[in-house]
């Protein structure tokens, strides 16, 4: 039988890191308090001291810490990104998660023993892209964008020696990660350049009679009636008009949940399953981590007769964005 995939959980803070470890994460991923990581939100992330404490906590329990340095180094002075890689190596992280191939090149030359993971922001959607990263920079793991069906993931795995990590739960990017500039088109700041999407500082809520409007840099993302639950104006998840129809033209507010296809993911040999959500609370991280831990352990014990327990789905459903869940691209009809 294939080894069980690692469960990789989000750590937006030291409490979230400890919570994830305590609830069964095999590895956590975190980032520094600056624009070198793609969850560059106020109040989140680690300085050198908290990072060291987190790494010690994880290592004492035999778990791993991965550091995400997964925005694209900007312009001529890219020392902040290079310094982040140096810091990660000095701190003794188990791997760095990189998106920028220039930075991968730097990391593999400067720190030949540092394990390199290709971030989902690196947009490797096929094995030719993954294998370029292996040949050139010695990348040992790639996180696939949320665009492939299970069969397409299998095809990638069959054609590379690089470990493949896929997303298991969390907010769903409908666009290929690393290849979406919608946020900077609306606000001037994007995941690639600033490590943010639909940043909070551009969000305004306005009362318009009985309705509430959510705006991003002045652009109307959605409008909610009195009884409607209003969601954060992530710009791809608003309601817009196309040829006279007003609807969620790009994507509903929804979360990805792969429980249903977990046996297939195990069978095709994914190396790790990742939970999105460094911006989430420790309580959220605890719930998702323990639910996926239980599901993975059950699948390992009983791969033939694995079925999704209603209690797991109920636990995750409460945490899902807009209380909605989808298999996303893993299931063909979603496309």
């Amino acid at each position, binding site marked *: 039988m294939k080894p069980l995939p690692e469960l990789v959980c989000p750590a937006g803070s030291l409490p979230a890191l400890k919570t994830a470890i305590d609830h069964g994460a095999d590895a956590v991923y975190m980032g520094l308090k600056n624009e070198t990581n793609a969850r560059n939100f106020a109040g989140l992330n680690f300085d050198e001291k908290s990072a060291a404490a987190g790494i010690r906590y994880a290592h004492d329990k035999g778990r791993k810490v991965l550091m995400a340095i997964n925005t694209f180094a900007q312009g001529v002075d890219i020392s902040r990104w290079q310094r982040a890689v140096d810091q990660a190596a000095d701190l003794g992280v188990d791997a760095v998660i990189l998106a920028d191939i220039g930075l991968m090149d730097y990391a593999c030359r400067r720190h030949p023993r540092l394990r390199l993971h290709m971030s989902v922001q690196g947009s490797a*959607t096929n094995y030719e892209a993954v294998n*370029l990263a292996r040949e050139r920079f010695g990348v040992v793991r790639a996180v696939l964008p949320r665009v492939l069906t299970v069969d397409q993931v299998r095809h990638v795995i069959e054609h590379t020696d690089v470990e493949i990590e896929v997303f298991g739960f969390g907010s769903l990017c409908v666009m290929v990660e690393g290849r979406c500039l*919608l946020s900077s088109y609306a606000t001037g700041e994007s995941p690639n350049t600033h490590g943010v999407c639909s940043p909070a500082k551009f969000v305004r809520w306005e009362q318009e009679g009985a309705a509430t409007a959510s705006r991003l840099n002045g652009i109307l993302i959605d409008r909610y009636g009195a009884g409607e639950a209003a969601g954060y104006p992530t710009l791809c998840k608003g309601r817009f008009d*196309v040829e006279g129809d007003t609807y969620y033209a790009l994507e509903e507010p929804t979360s990805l949940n792969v429980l249903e296809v977990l046996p297939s993911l195990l069978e095709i040999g994914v190396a790790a399953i990742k939970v999105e959500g460094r911006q989430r609370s420790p309580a959220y991280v605890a719930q998702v981590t323990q639910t996926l831990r239980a599901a993975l352990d059950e699948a390992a014990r009983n791969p033939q007769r694995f079925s999704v327990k209603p209690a797991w789905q109920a636990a995750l459903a409460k945490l899902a964005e807009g209380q909605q869940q989808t298999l996303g691209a893993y299931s063909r009809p979603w496309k």
Partner: protein
Amino acid sequence: MSALNLKLTLGPSLFFWPRETVYAFYEEAATWPLDTIYLGEAVCSRRQQLRTSDWIDLAHKLADAGHDVVLSCQALTESESDLKRLRRVVGNGRVRVETNDLGAVHLASSAGVPFVAGCHSNIYNVDTLALMASMGAVGWVPPVEMDRDTLAAILAECRARALPLETELFAWGRLPLALSARCFTARHYNLKKDDCQFKCLEHADGARLSTREGKGFLTVNGIQTMSDGCHALLPHLTDIAAIGVSAVRVSPQATGTAEVVAAFRRAIAGSAVDMDSLPRPDGACLVDGYWRGEAGINPIGEHHHACA
């Protein structure tokens, strides 16, 4: 005004047009004052009005007629059949290619085929650009969100390092902003992507996505999301040439591409151009916020009318 040291290129059409429209377009384009013509299906594998072999034949025919031609690769490559088409484009044996993902870079680099790293290549710094050059890139198109000052600094550093790369700027057209596994045009018609009935054929400039207060925001173009605004760098050409950009790209639109190309040519030659009369895709407003380091949607400056 004196003439500018800038080449003028035609990007690949990002829209889905009927076969005869495509052939008529390139027959005309062959008569326009262009330095380079890019062509090929860069967006969606289901768009097969021209098959890969047709695109390659057309590229070779244009090259035979003396044009400088580049075959553009599909930007989102997922399946083995996508990779097969990619291998045929890269291995066309005659013209260079525009890579739009690392898979294409891998193939071109392994085969020793010179390539232009397209705007989806996520090159945001000189180290990454130099790395691309070491893998065989002869040119690059900066990400469309890159601002003027960042690009100027990168190009100054390129000169300092003597990196011999051509820099081509996306200078006119609806901006390619995002790619997805999902087809938003099929979604609009409540169709599955696998049974999309090729609805993109009905939207020669894509379909406008407006806010609930009726303001144009984005454009739905199959699996691609574009700006509604037409990115227009025509007023900035003097500065663009001064910072060391080698070429400016016009992205094709359903009608009026010839006038846009002619206007750019006149501006490069040093003549004044009336921006306001230029045809825009679906009558969109003109934007240049990205170039000025702002939100991409921000309209062009006060000396021109952003909206028709």
